[in-house]
């Protein structure tokens, strides 16, 4: 187990050390002269425009919902892909039907204009 995961562990440790280290170091040795402008949230170097808590359009919800639907479709492809050969034609037909049904949904939302932003 350890062998296969060792690179990931090393990466996690390095990432953590880098992130935490940067913050801690700048906190410790940084030179601080706070002013109102400096303490304001950073927005691409521009002056602030409005509040961050703006009300989002419901379109985001539709997009997120459709994303979840097709995300789940994609998730079903993983276990299918690893046994694709073993399942043979049966698995191929099965996944074909699966995708076809979702394709109907895709055509529906597309034609209905759910994917247009306007």
């Amino acid at each position: 187990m350890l062998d296969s995961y060792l690179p990931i562990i090393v990466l996690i440790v390095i990432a953590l050390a880098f992130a935490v280290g940067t913050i801690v170091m700048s906190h410790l040795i940084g030179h601080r002269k706070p002013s109102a402008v400096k303490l304001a949230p950073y927005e691409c170097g521009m002056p602030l425009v409005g509040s961050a808590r703006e009300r989002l359009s419901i379109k985001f919800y539709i997009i997120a919902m459709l994303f979840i639907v097709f995300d789940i479709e994609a998730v079903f492809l993983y276990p299918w892909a690893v046994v694709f050969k073993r399942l043979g034609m049966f698995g191929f037909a099965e996944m074909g039907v699966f995708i076809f049904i979702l394709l109907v949904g895709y055509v529906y939302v597309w034609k209905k204009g759910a994917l247009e932003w306007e």
Partner: protein
Amino acid sequence: MENLVQLAMQNVNFAAIMPSLVLCCFGMAILLINVFMPRGKTTSASLISIIALLVTAVVSLQGWNNPQFGFAGHVALDNFATFFNMTFLLAAGLTILMSDDYLRREGYPIGEYYPLILFSTAGAMWMASGTDLMTIFLGLEVLSISLYILAGMFRHQLQSNEAGLKYFLLGAFSTGFLLYGIALLYGVAGTTNVADIGLYLSAHPAMIGNPMTVAGMLLMSIGFLFKIAAAPFHMWTPDVYQGAPTPVTAFMSAGPKAAAFAALMRIFILGLAGLQSEWTSLLWGLAILTMIIGNVTAIYQTNLKRMLAYSSIAHAGYALVGLVAANAVGVSGILFYMLAYTFMNLGAFAVLVLAGKKGEENLTLEGFSGFGFKRPFLGVAMTIFLLSLMGIPPTAGFAGKFYIFAGAIKSGYIWLAIIGVLNSAVSLYYYLRVIVYMYFKDPQEDYSWVSMHTGAVVSIVIAIVGVLYLGIIPGKIMEMAKLAIF
């Protein structure tokens, strides 16, 4: 390796899922037609849906006395499933007939409506024909998700939104219980196949009293009792029934109830026969509670949809009595009762669809004053349906209650039968009150009623014929119901 694949291919027995397959294909076709055709043409959609239901009925009848099994034993088209399929198709058919003009009248000519009804019918079929807890669970989800959308379909009416949201939140919550119960039973038996669970429990009697098994059974029944609208899981019913579009309410009162009964019966009688004493005592109490809560609360309702919601709770209680009896008469009585209830309740809702006044749905008791003289046909039809809901001979409701209570007496639950009959007597009050308003009160003003829609009239006529047929000659259908049980 090849053998395994071939085995899997052989397992794919399309005959076993043909009815739901046909429905789903038609549903998808209507969805796509609706997208590519000019909008607002829902008449063709309702026509195609009716054709779909008829084709499905023919296909489904192939399974009668010719049981088909398939998909690694996950689905069976046996007599039981066929009988229930017919009930679902009838409910869907009557619903679609009464919907078309109603939707246009209310300003929601929506093409998605018909595919959703077809999908939910397919879900109900999977519940009735599923022999694996997975199939039953997924069928329940298909049924419920379509109904959540349908209940909240009138997007600009707060009541409809409330109905959709309430049904969704509580329904999702109850599904969680169901799933947890399934997980526990899988943990006990190591299989999700209903028959295999039964075999495991009879081979390992020690596991029957195990808390995990009992907890699994209890949690699973919560999920189904919610759909049946049995007390104390009935809280959603009045609000949802009242807020949802009337045809949807009609379908909701018959389809999911029958489907949940089908699943409950298959699981309890085939899978959990070993726990019969446990679930009998559970359902015994719940049946009484459900009957009393439904009937007593219905007395106080002035909105007819709400009253029918409580009456639907009460009827769930009567049907549960048959499951408590758990003998041939009681169980086949449930099958009969669900069919009879579909006829009488959908008929009553079809009358409600046509009872609207111009510009508003007219569903209060007051609004029904003088209804019987103003609109003689609807008045007579409503009277017949109400008499049937009361259980007065010679209507379907009487025959259904007769079989169920006869089953209870046969199994020795005499008190349960007596309480059931007493409850029926209580129900006379609120059903008769509607008739009194219809015939013995003068209308308060001169309404302009909505016109008679052909579709709804056809569904009322079908329902009247069904109610009277089942009431006068119940023997034939009852024989079929007896053939349909396990």
